[in-house]
């Protein structure tokens, strides 16, 4: 148990980060050039870290599987990015943002990290604005904000419905500047296939060039994983279809603990599945809930078109159940409420797996023009996908897998349990507890990348200045590369009948049914059996045409799905272990009489960090107890 030292600095919460910064070791500029850092991923955290490290003078190698860093999936975030600027004079502060995150995360996040994330949020907004991110503005020229799911202040900065793309383009531009200066070398269309450890320290990676198929060795003094989340375990999710957990999973198998894997957020407002061939579910920004009202008919199986159902026969169930927050309750609450109504038979649409999100009243009150200004592009997108005009008919929405609060365990310095291996952004577990509040992922990813890691990593690299350039010729690189190639060969040699995607789809169904929005012991145990069976079938009947030394998208996919079989097993194990309901993790056995989540603070106020213990062996859990010094643990109530 001694392995989990979170390294939270002493002192009052508000002083911890300041104190840390004042005492952290530094690296002389002349030495920085000699130190190499590998950053995997080019989203807000990855591109942010690569450019900030480049600015400091480190030699950075940045990798992404896409053809350009500008396509990392941060690009798809819609709603906005939080900061405790209090530009609205509505009583916001760093403390209140911190408090909202802790409460929203249902008291399963580490106070010190969360406070720091809130603290750097203001710098993030300043930085993006200076980089030319066109955030929405008011007529006086100042930045505009809006209120976002689960909070009572207006602290969310936004760029229409594509804040993610605008922030990512900002990060990409700062990355480009460092590439032009020669501080960062970009390696697009590369997939990290394994981590190389030398003397227990992260010293490099084995990557596959996705165009030529060439297996490459890259060495560095430290490795940073900014590889995002694993929401695609559900197959249908709001993630990019190529998003995957392989890099993080390989690191886990090399010794990095995986924390709270079962904390997966299901986003309440997505376009429902339209057909069986569907490859993904499109998110409709949560900001829509600011003006849209969620409802289902009061009568079971009502098949009338939405507009023909009179006011008194509509059940605005969120406003009914949660009068204080209404349609703005946190995501987990909204998602479960939608599932509850649909399971009870009140769903709408052909599949009956959807609820209405209605703008009729907002359009009546504010005018079509105002609504168009706020959500025009989202309405257009909805129309494109479904052929339904949301200005005239309510949207239909349903929850979908979205964000993973769980991830690699990291300490206050964002270092995993492997020395020299860092995890930032969604890839780590640290800031969102059991549920993430809207608009805090862009905030956390950017904060990690730009303002936290570039400071904390010095503490490690300061002791590495005497280590010469790492050679890729060492036996460790040799051995890891061999393992990687053998695994690729193994996937290619099965020569069965089924595609990787078809396995992924079936795995996703198991996860959605038994380990989705609502879980119970029986279902989880069943899921473990089903996963095992499917995994066996995968290794028996998969087919991947071609070879590994060429562009081979089926092979890429197969490798990712193979890792998902192992990760889902851990995820279900974690869900089984956590005998309580908290945030997005809802165990049916643990609920209040009116169906709300019931935490068990005495037994589960800890982070479950899982250690890999070899193939076939059960993972070993390590507990990091969470101590709440500032915040009093309360039952989360949005009523």
């Amino acid at each position, binding site marked *: 148990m001694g392995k989990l030292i979170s390294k939270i600095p002493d002192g009052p919460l508000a002083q911890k980060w300041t104190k840390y910064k004042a005492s952290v070791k530094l690296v002389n500029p002349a030495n920085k050039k000699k130190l190499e850092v590998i950053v995997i991923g080019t989203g807000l955290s990855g591109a942010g870290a690569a450019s900030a490290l480049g600015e400091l003078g480190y030699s950075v190698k940045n990798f992404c599987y896409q053809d350009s860093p500008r396509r990392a999936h941060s690009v798809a975030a819609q709603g906005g990015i939080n900061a405790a600027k209090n530009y609205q004079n509505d009583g916001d502060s760093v403390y209140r943002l911190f408090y909202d995150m802790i409460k929203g995360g249902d008291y399963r996040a580490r106070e010190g990290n969360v406070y720091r994330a809130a603290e750097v949020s203001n*710098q993030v907004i300043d930085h993006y604005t200076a980089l030319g991110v066109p955030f929405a503005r008011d007529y006086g020229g100042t930045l505009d904000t809006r209120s976002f799911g689960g909070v009572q202040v207006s602290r969310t900065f936004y760029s229409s419905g594509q804040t993610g793309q605008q922030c990512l383009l900002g990060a990409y531009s700062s990355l*480009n500047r460092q590439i032009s200066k020669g501080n960062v070398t970009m390696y697009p269309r590369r997939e990290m296939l394994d981590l190389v450890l030398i003397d227990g320290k992260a010293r490099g990676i084995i990557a596959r060039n996705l165009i030529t198929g060439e297996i490459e060795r890259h060495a560095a003094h430290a490795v940073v994983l900014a590889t995002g989340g694993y929401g695609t375990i559900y197959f249908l999710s709001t993630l990019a279809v190529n998003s995957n957990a392989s890099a993080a999973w390989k690191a886990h198998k090399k010794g990095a603990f995986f924390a709270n894997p079962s904390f997966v957020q299901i986003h309440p407002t997505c376009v429902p599945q339209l057909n069986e061939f569907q490859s993904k579910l499109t998110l409709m920004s949560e900001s829509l809930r600011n003006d849209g009202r969620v409802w289902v008919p009061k009568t079971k199986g009502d098949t009338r078109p939405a507009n023909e159902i009179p006011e008194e026969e509509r059940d605005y169930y969120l406003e009914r159940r949660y009068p204080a927050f209404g349609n703005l309750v946190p995501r987990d609450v909204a998602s479960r409420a939608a599932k509850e109504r649909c399971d009870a038979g009140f769903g709408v649409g052909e599949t009956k797996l959807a609820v209405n999100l209605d703008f009729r009243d907002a359009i009546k009150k504010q005018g079509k023009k105002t609504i168009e200004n706020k959500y025009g592009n989202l309405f257009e997108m909805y129309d494109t996908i479904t052929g339904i005009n949301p200005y005239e008919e309510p949207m239909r929405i349903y929850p979908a897998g979205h964000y993973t609060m769980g991830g690699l365990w990291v300490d206050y310095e964002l270092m995993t349990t492997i020395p020299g291996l860092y995890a930032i952004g969604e890839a780590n577990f640290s800031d969102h507890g059991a549920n993430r509040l809207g608009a805090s992922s862009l905030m956390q990813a950017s904060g990690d990348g730009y303002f936290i890691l570039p400071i904390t990593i010095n503490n490690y690299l300061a002791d590495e200045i005497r280590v010469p350039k790492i050679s890729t010729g060492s036996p460790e690189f040799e051995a890891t590369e061999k393992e990687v190639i053998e695994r690729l060969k193994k996937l290619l040699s099965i020569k069965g009948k089924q595609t990787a995607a078809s396995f992924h789809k079936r795995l996703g169904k198991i996860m959605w049914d038994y380990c989705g929005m609502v879980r119970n012991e029986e279902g989880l145990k069943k899921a473990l059996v089903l996963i095992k069976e499917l995994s066996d079938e995968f290794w028996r009947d998969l087919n991947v045409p071609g070879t590994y030394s060429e562009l081979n998208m089926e092979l890429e996919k197969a490798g990712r799905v193979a890792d998902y079989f192992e990760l889902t097993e851990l995820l279900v194990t974690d869900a089984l272990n956590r005998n309580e309901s908290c945030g997005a993790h809802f165990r049916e056995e643990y609920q209040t009489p009116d169906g709300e989540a019931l935490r068990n603070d005495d037994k589960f106020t800890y982070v479950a960090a899982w250690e890999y213990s070899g193939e076939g062996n059960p993972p070993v859990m390590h507990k990091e107890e969470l101590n709440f010094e500032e915040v009093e643990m309360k039952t989360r109530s949005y009523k």
Partner: protein
Amino acid sequence: MKLTLKIWRQKNAKAKGSFVTYKMDNVSPEMAFLEMLDSLNKKLVEEDLDPVAFDHDCREGICGSCGMYINGHPHGLVPGVTTCHLSMRYFKEGETIWIEPWRAKPFPVIKDLIVDRQAFDKIQIAGGFISINTGAAPDANSILIRKQKSDEAFDSAICIGCGACVAACKNASAMLFVSAKISQFALLPQGRIEAKERVRAMVEKMDEVGFGNCSNTGSCEAECPKKIKIVNIARLNREYFKAF
């Protein structure tokens, strides 16, 4: 729906490509175009044949990965839509669909429908940024920007870098892409400071990597999935003249 697909197949950058015909029997009008191709690939893989390679990722029209030239249009017939959002309901029963990769010298084919678009990255590396170090920014509200200007900058900034403008242009010109990037920065006070250096560097790089010249045909604007306007190109020209 029954469809006939004529897809450009090319093993790798060096190989000679050709069109291959595929008959599709069970296409649902609810499918998106890429899902239709997914179903073709599923069939091919099950027969141990090489699936059709195409770039795709977010499948919600924002990452800019996907892009194919479909029946004479980049991203297909429907305006304002990327290939991933192109619904099969826009195609007719029995229709023959020609699917080609983007064609431009700076976008060489890598495999089948995948092209190398790093030329776009190179142009942006040449100057598509504001030079400010992390931590050096002033308070965000100390930079006041007129709402109309800021909105205009946003309208330019929505470019997803898919390359449809180049694919559509008879000259394979990248002017719409470059002008959108230039405009975003040119319209904001933060970007004005190094506006001259930026426009010169980016235009020079654009010419160097081999894109064609703009002859104001407007096909880029007609085919841009994000409906970016050629007003940006006029602005780029203005900025370029001002830079000397």
